[in-house]
């Protein structure tokens, strides 16, 4: 591949915009993982379901993609708490491996239900935003990605503010630090967990609506985004919001700059390489000083 400064600049812009979305997808996982110490291996599949909801609202219902947030976020909140109550709550105290296997099972169910209902086709929603591109000097900026970036940053910021400043948010953080102590000071840990899981899922609803103008959906789309979310959460440090943002940008840049420098899809190997190195040498992530 011929190297040119324009190409690199283009890759940088795309990488930053992509990184924003990666960060939003990851904060939900980070919240659930950080609060409940459960790695939800069905995280990507929650996103996939949300993308189908958004897709059908846009294509069949004629909705504006960004208005679908009004449906996707509450729908994912409900799906999240429903799944939490029926399957995840009963195994909260089980060995971590059982939790992993249970959520892997959930991901298989969701993936294959999607295959049954929506078939294996790759669907793209062609919206007015999809063609909203403009030139910034020598590089093309995709309007839909810019909006997604801004929306992701805003959503992540709102979530952060909610966790830091509100009474409920403080309760969630207290429960994540010490389950027993939180109970002692009168926090209803059960409800806190339920809420955290619902919010973590709802953030994927927002992400799905933001992505639908420029990203395809398919039953297996969750696989890739799920993996990206684990990478970002581990790299940024478990439970750390600023960490997830920075890590999202790093991975977004790795993917897009890597794709412009390496042949084929080898950039993905780079992403997993970073992941493995971080897991081995700094599993607490770049921002998670204390926890492991």
């Amino acid at each position, binding site marked *: 591949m011929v190297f040119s400064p324009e190409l690199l600049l283009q890759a940088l812009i795309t990488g930053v915009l992509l990184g924003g979305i990666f960060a939003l997808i990851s904060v939900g996982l980070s919240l659930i993982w950080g609060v409940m110490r459960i790695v939800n291996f069905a995280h990507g599949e929650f996103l996939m379901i949300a993308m189908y909801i958004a897709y059908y609202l846009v294509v069949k219902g004629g909705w504006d993609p960004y208005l679908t947030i009004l449906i996707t976020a509450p729908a994912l909140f409900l799906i999240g708490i429903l799944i939490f109550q029926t399957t995840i709550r009963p195994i909260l105290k089980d060995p971590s491996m059982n939790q992993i296997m249970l959520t892997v099972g959930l991901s298989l169910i969701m993936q294959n239900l999607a295959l*049954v209902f929506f078939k294996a086709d790759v669907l793209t929603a062609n919206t007015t935003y999809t063609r909203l591109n403009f030139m910034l000097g020598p590089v093309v900026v995709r309007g839909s990605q810019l909006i997604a970036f801004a929306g992701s940053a805003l959503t992540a910021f709102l979530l952060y503010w909610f966790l830091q400043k509100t009474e409920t948010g403080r309760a969630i953080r207290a429960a994540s630090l010490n389950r027993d102590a939180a109970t002692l000071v009168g926090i209803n840990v059960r409800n806190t967990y339920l809420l955290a899981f619902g919010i973590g899922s709802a953030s994927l609803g927002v992400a799905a609506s933001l992505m639908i103008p420029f990203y395809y959906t398919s039953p297996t789309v969750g696989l890739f985004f799920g993996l990206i979310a684990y990478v970002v959460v581990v790299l940024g440090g478990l439970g750390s919001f600023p960490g997830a943002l920075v890590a999202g940008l790093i991975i977004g840049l790795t993917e897009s700059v890597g794709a412009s420098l390496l042949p084929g899809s080898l950039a993905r190997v780079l992403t997993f390489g970073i992941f493995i190195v971080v897991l081995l040498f700094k599993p607490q992530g770049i921002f998670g000083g204390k926890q492991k």
Partner: protein
Amino acid sequence: MKPLLKNSSILLAVILLVALTLPLYAGEYYIHIGVMVLFYAYMAVAWNILGGYAGQHSLGHSLFMGIGAYTSTYLFSVMGITPWLGMWVGGALAGVMGLFVGYLCFRYGLKGPYFALVTIALAEAAVYIATNAEGIGGAQGLSVAWTGNAPEMMQFNGKGGYYYVILVMTVAAIVLSTWIIRRRFGYQLLAVRENEDAAEALGVDTLRVKVQASIISAMLTALGGTFFAQYFTYINPRNVFGEGPSIQILLFAIIGGLGTVWGPVVGALVLVPVAELSRGWLGGSFSGAHILLYGTVMVLVMLFMPNGIVGLYEKIRQRIQNRNEKSEVA
């Protein structure tokens, strides 16, 4: 206790007899189901040595399956080397990989979900490397050239030949797995799983035994990969290195009963026929049916019988025994 043992050896003899004679009276379709049961039982037994005995749950064992499948197929298709030899080359390479992965992860103390994540990442990285390596077929993958009915090339007319190959492999794996668990090495693995710090304090070289389990498990899995390639005559990066095979490798061990000799076998024996038959009945109209079934069973097992089928059996047996003892006392 005694009569129970006798019963189980009779049961074992009957199962072995049925397994040995199946191709003599069953049609091709049922032999195929037999092959699938044995193949997944074999893979689950291989996974169980690291995942069940040592308690280190790899979610990326397809890495080793893929190494086995690609090595033997490449050697066979490009250089004409028989898979009977190629499988051992693949096994050796996978063993080296198992050493590398195991040493790297366990040396840095990775456990639980973190170990699982590294194994997924490695297998996924392998998918992308294989996809971009044109020398081994890239995204298209490799076909196993058909040389006619050539047992010396691990190719047979009909499914009966394959059936006996995987039967021998499975029996050998079960024997090896039984042998391991009855030896000092097996006890050390179980000790690591139950309480690593305590094992270390008692003088078990935990890093060493975990890495050894990783090597053995990887090698066995790679041999299964060669069989997979020969049986289906086609491999591509996703169907040997992907997440799908990784999950199918461990599924039956989890459902049957983790860390027991027979759990993986029982899991495959119970579930694979149901899945294969449902796949046959529902066919193309419902292509994810068997995976949907697997996912549902996995969730139900985790919720209601986390020790799998064998664990449940043991529990029931224990209860009956306790009751009998009580009534004897009374």
